[in-house]
């Protein structure tokens, strides 16, 4: 048995003889002794010397033991200072009063040395236990504060990165717990140079810091590549490769990535491991599920990764709704999951589309009684192109080295067309010309239209009239994937020519393809309406660029951009 450390013990006893007797016994057991002749003295001594344990006579003049015990317990606060009442009282009511006043035990007079020593020892054990508990509690509280502070700092840094996008855009509504990041949930949104909107809802495996560490590199790739004009496929490949490289084998990120095109009125979707999202067609009330077709990001090697996306047509006002598994995996007291069926019941009962989140939250509360902290939802609606106001990119260079007189030609052939998207490179090159920067959105849109027309209608020979209705729309993109996969020959040529012109300059873009061409005169007769799903590309190019024209039976397109004063 452990040798007992000497304690400082306060003896409060009004009888001088008893006091002397007790002091002698206790001192002989190896403890320091303080003595008081009444309750008031005891409280005073306690305040000055903080003894570890008190032996307290119940009946004393000036202040009795009960009152002294109450005051000493109050002074001791959370620290356990055991009080053993010394009493000749025998009625159970009086003994109970000792404990009610804060006494921890009592010892009947006359004193039995062996029992006294045992009681002191027992009380000392309790005292130490309490001290250890308090110390550990404080340590845990300190660590907890430390952790919260770390999370606060990490979140502040991350928010700067994550919210550099356009989550605050008018057509986005989202709901995330403030510390969703530390539950592995991630929501990002940004405009492409063409004014399309990319949105990512992701969910990393696990919780806490491990779940949050992958978010930063993912956000960087997302924002960097979106701003440069890369499409979903290239961005997904890069995100997957990066996560595969840096994350341990058992960590990955389920994600849904959207590209909402206001010009083309469509949404492109890639879903890897997230619950079904929904495309809500307001006119028909239909909700098209956007199901997971892929493994999460960070699982497959770059070679095995599948970047195939689906494209759905949308009408202005249609909405895309995405959610994390926190919604459908919320479980009630008996481990029943909320599930997709209940979610669809909420959809069916929802009368005001703007109150969908609230309806879902209410349903979760009704189901479970408390909310999970990893519920993320986002809803993006399709605006009229005129309502979209992408923020202007910020350029950091000084403008002293602007190239103004040059031309360049590219020819992209079969195998390159399959995988490679040259648009970001072309745009970066053109934006070295500072005069063009003010029109970067229009420039990118026109380049993108000309390139995709040359590739899809020219090289791949796809019929744009397929896109007249929703079913054809899906078929069109299916055919696009299939033909691109099988592509052997063909080319798209891009010629860029920049020349100074007065104070400003002029850019001529020519795009040629190896396809069959089209009936230029008939297409040019169409009004510049841009409302139909099909053939919108040509009218967009004519509206955004100058002197758009087609030659060589539609195989060669030409358009100009000019600027007045050097920016």
């Amino acid at each position, binding site marked *: 048995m452990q040798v007992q450390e000497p304690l400082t013990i306060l003896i409060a006893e009004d009888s001088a003889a008893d006091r002397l007797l007790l002091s002698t016994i206790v001192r002989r057991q190896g403890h320091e002794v303080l003595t008081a002749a009444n309750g008031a003295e005891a409280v005073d001594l306690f305040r000055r010397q903080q003894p570890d344990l008190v032996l307290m006579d119940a009946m004393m003049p000036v202040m009795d033991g009960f009152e002294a015990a109450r005051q000493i317990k109050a002074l001791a606060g959370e620290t356990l200072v055991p009080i053993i009442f010394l009493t000749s009282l025998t009625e159970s009511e009086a003994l109970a009063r000792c404990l009610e006043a804060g006494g921890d035990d009592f010892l009947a007079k006359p004193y039995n040395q062996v029992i006294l020593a045992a009681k002191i020892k027992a009380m000392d054990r309790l005292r130490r236990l309490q001290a250890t508990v308090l110390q550990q509690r404080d340590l845990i509280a300190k660590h907890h504060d430390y952790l919260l502070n770390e999370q606060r700092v990490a979140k502040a840094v991350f928010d700067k990165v994550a919210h550099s996008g356009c989550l605050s855009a008018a057509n986005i509504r989202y709901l995330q717990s403030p510390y969703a990041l530390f539950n592995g949930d991630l929501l990002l949104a940004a405009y492409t140079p063409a004014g399309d909107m990319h949105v990512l809802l992701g969910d990393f*495996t*696990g919780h806490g810091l491990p779940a949050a560490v992958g978010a930063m590199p993912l956000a960087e790739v997302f924002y960097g590549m979106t701003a440069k004009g890369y499409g979903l496929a290239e961005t997904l490949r890069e995100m997957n490769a990066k996560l595969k490289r840096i994350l341990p*084998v058992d960590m990955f990120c389920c994600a849904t990535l959207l590209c909402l095109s206001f010009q083309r009125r469509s949404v492109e979707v890639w879903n*890897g*491991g997230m619950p079904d999202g929904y495309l809500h067609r307001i006119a028909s009330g239909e909700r098209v599920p956007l199901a997971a077709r892929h*493994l999460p990001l960070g699982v497959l090697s770059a070679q095995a990764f599948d970047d195939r996306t689906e494209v759905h047509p949308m009408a202005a006002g249609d909405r895309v709704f995405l959610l994390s598994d926190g919604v459908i995996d919320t479980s009630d007291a008996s*481990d029943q999951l909320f599930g997709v069926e209940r979610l669809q019941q909420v959809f069916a009962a929802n009368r005001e589309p703007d109150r969908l989140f609230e309806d879902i939250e209410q349903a979760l509360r009704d189901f479970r009684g408390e909310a999970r902290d990893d519920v993320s939802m986002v809803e993006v609606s399709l605006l009229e192109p005129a309502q979209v106001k992408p923020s202007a990119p910020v350029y950091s260079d000084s403008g002293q080295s602007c190239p103004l007189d040059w031309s360049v030609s590219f020819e992209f052939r079969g195998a390159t067309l399959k995988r490679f998207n040259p648009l970001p490179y072309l745009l970066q090159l053109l934006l070295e010309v500072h005069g063009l920067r003010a029109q970067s959105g229009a420039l990118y849109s026109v380049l993108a239209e000309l390139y995709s027309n040359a590739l899809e209608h020219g090289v791949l020979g796809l019929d744009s009239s397929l896109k007249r209705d929703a079913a054809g729309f899906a078929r069109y993109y299916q055919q696009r994937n299939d033909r691109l996969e099988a592509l052997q020959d063909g080319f798209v040529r891009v010629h860029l020519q920049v020349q100074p012109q007065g104070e400003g300059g002029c850019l001529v873009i020519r795009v040629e393809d190896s396809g069959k061409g089209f009936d230029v005169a008939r297409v040019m007769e169409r009004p510049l309406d841009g409302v139909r799903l099909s053939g919108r590309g040509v009218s967009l190019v004519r509206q955004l660029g100058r002197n758009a024209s087609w030659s060589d039976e539609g195989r060669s397109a030409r358009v100009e951009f000019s600027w007045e004063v050097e920016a």
Partner: protein
Amino acid sequence: MSVVTEVSPDGQKLTISVKGRFDFGRHQEFRESYERLPKKPDSIVVDLKEATYLDSSALGMLLLLRDHAGGDNSDVRVVNSSSDVRKILAISNFDKLFDIT
């Protein structure tokens, strides 16, 4: 024990059965179930007959197991999954990596 392992007499086949919730709490047991074997088995079966629920960290554990068993050259089968568990495996498209029945 919520993770029970059984090795066939010839040591070729390892069966890992998970009972109850298959989540982060099973991490240690699950890893040990295949790491402590003296010899790598040729094939591994994960029996989820008595698993009631599976979360994303369980998916991570399955990936670790697959990696340990040789990645793309591994033979890991997931059997007897309940409809709830199968839904979760389907959403994650894990049927592209594992033979799931």
